[in-house]
């Protein structure tokens, strides 16, 4: 198994020339779910490779051996051969049994509709073009960056608020579509700590290519700390700081129509900002969460993410207002 992984990776690397790291590689599983599909893929791959070699070799041999030569007698007009026909009907059928049996076994072993006992439940809601995450048992709502503890079973329930999306974090496992009115499940147990990237896989409109996501697999203790922080209310900016001005700007601007900051605004159209300062990226994983990008994003989101529903504010905010807003959002850790 290790050898075949090595072989596949080498083939990929050889093609790339240098290569790596590949943060969304399906060849680098980091959960039981991803491993199960990876093992199955390698099973099927080797069957396919064997068939490929045999059939292409037969084709090549036929072409070389029976190529036209002067003086060759007219070929025998064979019309068929019953035994051969039966043989090459049965051979693929038998090989397919060897593919189908582990396939069905894996379908059932990775079925995720029932929540694993003692596991963490996360709800994923796809939006054009960002991800909302809710932890119903912990009372947490966040966006774009999902935190889960390492080694614990996690069940992800996936749905959509608008069009069809598909939630995919390749190293943790296969994708499932986020469909309005349906709930799909995946379940996995992440086996190593890390910051794993993924993105929407179902075409969902203008900025489908910009709908990225991250899953942060934390040590259990770090996850507990994160969860406690997220459960609390938003940070209160110190008196007469820039951040406090920012809070005032936020409260009198259109921001409140779409965004939630607990105790400040109840909007539900855009991402929950109660702890936005604790996230490492903004705009669904497109940009680092720093002052420069936040300022540009607030000033003109559609220029950074085509079709963004967060339109340019009319009348536009002043640079001072934006600076204050940035300070406020960054203070919301």
């Amino acid at each position, binding site marked *: 198994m290790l050898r075949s992984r090595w072989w596949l990776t080498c083939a990929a690397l050889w093609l790339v020339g240098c290569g790596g790291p590949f943060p969304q590689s399906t060849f680098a599983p980091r959960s039981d779910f991803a491993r199960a599909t990876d093992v*199955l893929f390698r099973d099927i791959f080797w069957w396919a490779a064997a068939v490929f070699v045999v059939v292409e070799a037969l084709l090549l041999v036929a072409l070389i051996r029976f190529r*036209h030569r002067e003086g060759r007698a007219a070929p025998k*007009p064979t019309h068929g051969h019953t035994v051969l026909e039966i043989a090459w009907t049965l051979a693929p059928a038998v090989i397919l049994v060897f593919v189908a049996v582990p396939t069905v076994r894996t379908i059932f072993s990775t079925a995720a509709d029932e929540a694993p006992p003692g596991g963490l439940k996360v709800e994923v809601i796809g939006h054009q073009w960002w991800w909302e995450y809710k932890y119903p048992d912990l009372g947490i709502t966040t966006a774009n960056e999902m935190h889960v503890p390492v080694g614990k079973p996690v069940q992800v329930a996936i749905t959509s608020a608008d069009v069809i999306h598909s939630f995919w974090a390749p190293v943790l496992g296969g994708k499932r579509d986020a469909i309005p009115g349906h709930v799909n499940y995946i379940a996995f147990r992440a086996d190593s700590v890390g910051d794993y990237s993924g993105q*929407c896989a179902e075409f969902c409109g203008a900025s489908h290519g910009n709908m990225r996501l991250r899953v942060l697999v934390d040590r259990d203790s770090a996850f507990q700390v994160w969860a406690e922080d997220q459960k609390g209310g938003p940070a209160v900016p110190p008196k007469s700081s820039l951040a406090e001005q920012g809070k005032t700007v936020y409260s009198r601007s259109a921001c409140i129509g779409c965004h939630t900051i607990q105790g400040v605004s109840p909007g539900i159209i855009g991402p929950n900002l109660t702890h936005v300062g604790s996230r490492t990226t903004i705009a669904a994983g497109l940009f680092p969460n720093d002052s420069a990008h936040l300022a540009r994003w607030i000033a003109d989101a559609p220029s950074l993410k085509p079709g963004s529903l967060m339109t340019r504010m009319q009348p536009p905010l002043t640079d001072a207002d934006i600076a204050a807003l940035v300070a406020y959002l960054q203070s919301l850790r």
Partner: protein
Amino acid sequence: MSHATASAAPAAPAAGVRSWLTTTDHKRIGLLYFWTAFGFFLIGGIEALVIRTQLAQPNGHLVGAHTYNELFTMHGTTMIFLALMPLGASFFNYIIPLQIGARDVAFPRLNAFSYWVFLLGGLFLNASWIAGPLFHAPHLSVAPDDGWFGYANLTERQFSPGPNIDFWLLGLQILGISSLAAGFNFIVTILNLRAPGMKMMRLPTFTWMTLVTQFLIITAFPVITVALVFLMFDRFFGTHFYVHEAGATPLLWQHLFWLFGHPEVYILILPAMGIVSEVLPTFSRKPLFGYPVVVYSGILIGFMGWSVWSHHMFAVGLGPIADSVFAATTMLIAVPTGVKIFNWIATLWGGDIRGTTALHFAVGFIAMFIIGGLSGVTHASPPTDLQQTDTYYVVAHIHYVLFGGTIMGLFAGMYYWWPKMSGRLLSEPLGKWHFWLQFVGMNLAFFPMHFIGLLGMPRRIYTYAPELGVGDLNLVSTVGAFLIAVSILVFLFNIWRTGRHGPRASNDPWGGATLEWSIPSPPPVYNFSVIPTVTSRLPRWRTERHGPMADPPAVPPAPIHVPGGSWWPMVAALGLPVMALAPLTHTLWVVFVGAALLLFGIYRWAFEPFEI
């Protein structure tokens, strides 16, 4: 209207633009299909080159998200509905009557109608590239932008308010009428116009695969028509066929679309399989190995194609039972496909193989289709498909099947039948250049996509992050795409040059076994001076029991009536895009103008005197 009878001297075909516009001759309609479809093939190819240039490196900015989404939507829609299907249709038109020993198709004017509807439907769809100003859109183009698969509910007015999707759903309905009319026409032709003695199990394999294809067309196109009519009602009349909030589900679209979409794959591949089954025997001088098995597996593929649609929907969450069943049916379809491949190799085995360009393309078809088939098995398995679906891995698969398969097969047909269609032999050295450039180009373009997908790049994204690490692979793929473009230019140059200076083709430049090789190249208007009587499956070859049949005399012993042309199929066809303009522009009276045109055309057509 011209009145032509051929007597002692073969009639010179009528010339002039008018004779082409009114033609009902299946051979001319075949050529019209060929050049129109090839034109759309070039447009779809240019779209592909822009897409590949955009993706050559991460964070590409040749085009924006808006244009990119239009490009990939129109690339898929154009290649499937405006290039590959009608290129197949050009061979159905030109070759089928010749292969079955007929003077024309069963309904020549309906055939002309199919062509004009196809042309107008294609122009209607592509008009969206420049129609923006008509709709006060911010861009010049309002081309469809939700993918060739147009998943609801993204296509609902709420999420796609512009005319883009209207162009798409109306254009596809127009094109569906063309396909349906042609489908019925060819079924009737093949079943009823066969020469005496040509029993069903003596039909050439290409004709057989065409027959299966036409049955798939007339059964699959109604399904997508229903889906499109639902969508049209949702967008124009406020119904809620795909709206979850109203108690419906957008998944209905996916079921209907793929219930059409998977048979559509076989509509695209079966004609190419038929061509390969003609080319291999001719150039290995051996009958097709296991003819009945190849025919039966073609029919079986046609039936089984209906039972696998949900394998496009494994990520949708249909549940483990449905996933298992559709995985099993999908894997089963590999069996008759594998049988065909083994029979083709067995046809070559023991033969006297002449490496013509047509044979190169036919063998290229087999070699590449195997790769597409095997990657298909890896996503017939739902758990592994969850890592593959909607990634570049599937883009690789579809192109190994439709480019490595269908297009290679169609080019095999072009090199094989072009002497018959044009009367000129194509240059073999240029043909080999074309083949090798295309073969290397397609593998450079599409093989890396397997890795690009498995390394985590989804499809249909207009840009990607450098961190993904797939920039170099994408660059290789782009180079391959341009190599393919060069190979197509070589092909066009070949056609142009040999059209002027090429050697004349005899009746039978290849030593073919089927009836089309018994008559001049290009054939006279009436095809056969005397309708042949067929006594064997390989009428022009010596078999154990039969000598080769005598070719029909060069001069018809009796006058042959050839019907003249007609304007009315074109007039009737014009009614359809006019009707489609009505919803597009929200102008009711236009629909009556279009309907009047259609009915008037059909009325005059129906009462047109037979002797014209």
